[in-house]
């Protein structure tokens, strides 16, 4: 039964066309290169270069106090990985000059009566100046500065500064406890930025490269004029389309496995949910990319036009996907748009499955959305392609 089916298949027109496409692809060295080079290059560049962590902030110091206490504070500030001393400044003006020139990012000013105030048990204030041009780094450095001061305070208390304050406190009110926060980081305890980036870039890479390769392959027949020969062949339009899409799909799936392998080995991303959801979502992404590429190709007369059209589609699709930055950081009016973006759904699936270990029971809405998007794109492209053939 199966053998009969296979025999029927291998003799069919589809398989003949399929083999023709495979041969064509195999002889096109540039295509083979474009299947391996971009994923490797993009993953390494994005994964290594895009990191939002804030470390070694260049900190300029104005120490007007010049005491053991102030030097202690500076030591506490710079012994962490967050701040790095960029030298002492003699006046606040010099410090602000250096910040506006951009040679340092942050400055700290310790007032003259710093040590005296501490010894007398009077609260004192240390001023931090932060260049907030980069909003994200500023928010994080602000957190660091506060944390360092907190730990310095804790140290002062343990050194016996505390009794002075406690006495003062007892005068006006009974002592009360403080609320303290104990954060725990789930799913990515090492806070590795690359885990977020690579899982997002995977979808981006699958869709973009699939659409470029597909539009190139589809527009080629038209450019070379060989589409006439296809039209003259006895094969029906469905057969032509299936035979065109299938080899591309196989090749691009191969690219997907290279990318997944890289994510696993180079970046050490865990696969808590197993390989299946990622591969399934990835296959849908490849099909969606082929759909986009084919549709674009039917609107263009040459490879150059197809690529140009890509410039209209790709940047908005990438920027509104949440692949490189959290969706919550987008403005409210743009957030609903991610629902129609396949890269977004794959990002949720990849992160959910790889990092959180979620299964189909929580990821099914994204799988459903991704399937619908893929189906719509593929039918659009098949419809356009068929119109063109007839």
């Amino acid at each position, binding site marked *: 039964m199966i053998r009969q089916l296979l025999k029927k298949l291998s003799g069919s027109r589809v398989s003949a066309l399929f083999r023709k496409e495979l041969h064509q692809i195999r002889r096109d060295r540039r295509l083979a290169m474009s299947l391996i080079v971009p994923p490797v290059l993009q993953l390494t560049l994005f994964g290594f270069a895009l990191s939002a962590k804030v470390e070694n902030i260049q900190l300029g110091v104005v120490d007007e106090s010049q005491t053991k206490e102030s030097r202690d504070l500076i030591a506490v500030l710079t012994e962490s990985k967050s701040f790095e001393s960029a030298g002492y400044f003699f006046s606040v003006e010099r410090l602000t000059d250096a910040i506006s020139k951009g040679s340092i990012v942050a400055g700290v000013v310790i007032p003259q009566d710093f040590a005296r105030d501490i010894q007398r048990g009077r609260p004192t204030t240390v001023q931090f100046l932060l260049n*907030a041009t980069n909003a994200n780094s500023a928010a994080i450095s602000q*957190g660091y500065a506060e944390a360092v001061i907190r730990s310095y305070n804790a140290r002062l208390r343990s050194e016996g500064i505390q009794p002075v304050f406690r006495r003062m406190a007892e005068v006006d009110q009974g002592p009360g406890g403080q609320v303290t926060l*104990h954060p725990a980081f789930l*799913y990515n305890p090492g806070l590795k930025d690359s885990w977020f980036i690579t899982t997002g870039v995977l979808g981006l890479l699958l869709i973009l490269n699939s659409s470029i390769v597909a539009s190139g392959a589809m527009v080629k027949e038209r450019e070379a004029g060989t589409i006439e020969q296809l039209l003259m062949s006895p094969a029906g339009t469905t057969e032509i389309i299936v035979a065109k899409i299938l080899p591309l799909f196989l090749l691009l799936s191969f690219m997907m496995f290279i990318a997944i392998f890289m994510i696993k080995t180079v970046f050490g991303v865990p696969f808590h949910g197993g390989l299946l959801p990622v591969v399934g979502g990835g296959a849908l992404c490849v099909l969606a990319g082929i759909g986009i590429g084919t549709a674009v190709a039917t609107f263009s007369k040459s490879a150059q036009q197809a690529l140009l059209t890509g410039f209209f589609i790709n940047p908005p699709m990438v920027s509104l996907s949440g692949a490189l930055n959290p969706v919550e950081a987008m403005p409210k009016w743009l957030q609903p748009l991610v629902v129609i973006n396949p890269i977004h759904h794959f990002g949720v699936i990849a992160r959910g499955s790889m990092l959180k270990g979620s299964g189909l029971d929580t990821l099914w809405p994204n799988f459903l959305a991704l399937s619908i998007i893929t189906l719509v794109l593929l039918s659009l492209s098949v419809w356009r392609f068929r119109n063109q053939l007839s």
Partner: protein
Amino acid sequence: MRRIIAQTRKELTQIVRDWRTLLLAIILPLILLMLLGNAISLSVTDMPMVVQDLDDSPSSRQLIDAFRSSLTLRVVTWPTDKQPVEALSTNTARAVLIIPTHFERDLKRGVDSPVQMIVDAADANTARLTTGYANQIIAAHNRVTNPGAIQPPVRAAIRLWYNPDRSSKKFYGPGIFVLALSIFPPLLAALAMAKEEDQKTILQVFVSNIPASEFLFGKVLAFMVVALGEAAVMMVLLFTMFDLRFAGDPTPFLVATILYAFCVASFGTMVGATISNQAAAMQAVALGGFLFVFLLSGLIYPIENIPASIRWLSNFIWGRYYIEVVRDAFLQGGGWPAVWYKTLIIGVIGVVFFFLAWVNKHRMQLKS
């Protein structure tokens, strides 16, 4: 001079007559700036958070109210019969705050009372921000509810300069402005140059009396006009939608913009002169203009975070210097003393690109 201008006019006429390139030249940069400038941001607001209040006392409710009134975190309801951590795996919340039993009793006794926050760290940067905000909220809460308690001896007064409301639009808007200028003018220039070769119209140039340098400069000038036009249109958007103003002396910005227009137009012309296949030239520009300028110029993430093994590359990325000049002009206002050498480097890189294009074409002959 007359020949250069004639060449420039011919180039500009060609652009205006092709609707696809015209759209690409004028509309697309605007769309890109509008979408990307608004959408690329790392500072989250309104992050959903689930609270599990095991104490259910006046004190714990007061703490929850402190979280509720913040702009960054939003308390969402979660059925009590479900594990709160499930809210993280189903993406309904990004953090869980757990207030232990005896929370109020401990506080009243004067014992420090810990609360736990479980943060979804799949996005490490957001996780860091969330804990930072939560710490700030709790510190403020402690000050309000417990003014008589042990005051910390040292307090930090943090001043945020140049961008006090930490608006990411003001940081990314200028960045995307630079990105758009780094993609579209060189793309058009490369296409125009490759087209001449592809369609063999370059032969007409070879037999005319125009020298290679004037021919190339005429082309570069045309795309400088395009780049400056794009810059002007996008500036309007920066001033209105992004609410940016010049922070200081605008002359460094103006000079750098003209030099950068020259730099990107020369880059495109160079690529087009080297690669005569239009599709391949386009991909080369996309790689150089988009991938490198996007990733290695400090556009989204700081350059210092790039590992040293590839960080040196960013010294050669022309967009990097221009981004620094633009951000200085709009946010810091350091003026000439801060950016003079960056402006110079932009010009030097532009001259190098132009020279490379000239080397490729100076013999005015078809490649054999």
